[in-house]
């Protein structure tokens, strides 16, 4: 049952990404969308800000009607310290800009169009993702 929700969620993500392409002609790469707000170019900020507002709106809706899907309790964050979250954020911020994408840009849109760059990128972040989780597990003595 759980896997059906996951699949449905995925299809919705894929469809939404496709709609961004159809309506606005853009790749739904979140890191790029955010990056474009931080390095503002004419005509490039408003649509990005609205997209991000849309994300937060969805979060708000789920918080109201399906709060179990949202991380609201301390245990949802698996005992991650402030330092870990800051390090994680910095790495994600710098890494996605350097690597020109994240799970949505490369993982969904890139692989969806069989881009060799995205296939390589996704392989890379999956690899370090799982190694990092392993290391954190060993150091912290238990996964989140």
């Amino acid at each position, binding site marked *: 049952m759980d896997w059906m929700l996951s699949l449905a969620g995925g299809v*919705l993500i894929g469809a939404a990404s496709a709609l961004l392409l159809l309506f606005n002609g853009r790749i739904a790469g979140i890191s790029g969308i955010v990056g474009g707000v931080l390095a503002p170019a004419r005509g490039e900020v408003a649509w990005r800000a609205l997209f991000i507002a849309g994300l937060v*709106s969805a979060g708000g809706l789920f918080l109201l009607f399906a709060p179990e899907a949202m991380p609201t309790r301390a245990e949802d964050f698996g005992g991650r310290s402030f330092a870990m979250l800051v390090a994680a*954020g910095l790495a994600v911020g710098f890494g996605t800009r350097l690597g020109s994408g994240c799970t949505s840009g490369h993982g969904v849109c890139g692989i969806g169009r069989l881009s060799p760059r995205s296939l390589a990128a996704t392989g890379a972040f999956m690899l370090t993702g799982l190694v990092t989780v392993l290391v954190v597990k060993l150091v912290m003595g238990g996964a989140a």
Partner: protein
Amino acid sequence: MRHLFTAWLVGLLFGAGLALGGMTLPAKIVGFLDVTGAWDPSLLFVMGGAVGAYALLYRLITRREGPLFDAKFQVPTSRRVDRRLVAGSLLFGVGWGLGGFCPGPALTSLATGATEVVTFVAAMLGGMLLFRVYESALARRRENALHAWEVKQS
């Protein structure tokens, strides 16, 4: 104006997909990456559904001359796997495994106002700004090196 409304609508649908698929819960992300432990395959189903849907729709949509509410399609054309791509992706993966968040779910989860989420997002924005600084510094170095070389030639 329509392109602004559609941007918001698409963001809403995208965020809904993330939440529906469980991607806004770090435990599910870490559970997927935790290959040696109790494995949570949710992300695989989310990715599968997303890539499948996108792949199909992408081919249909790009048959058009252009998008509905903007001038042209802006899709990356480079196919080169370079050092920056790999280094950046490796680093991103470390952050992803450390925090259990990537940009999309983190922003969607801002709605909760949880300190952990705000912290992560602030740091993420910081990391992105740091990258801008790094890029500018690199560009300046290249310019100086080129100028020095040009002076030498004359």
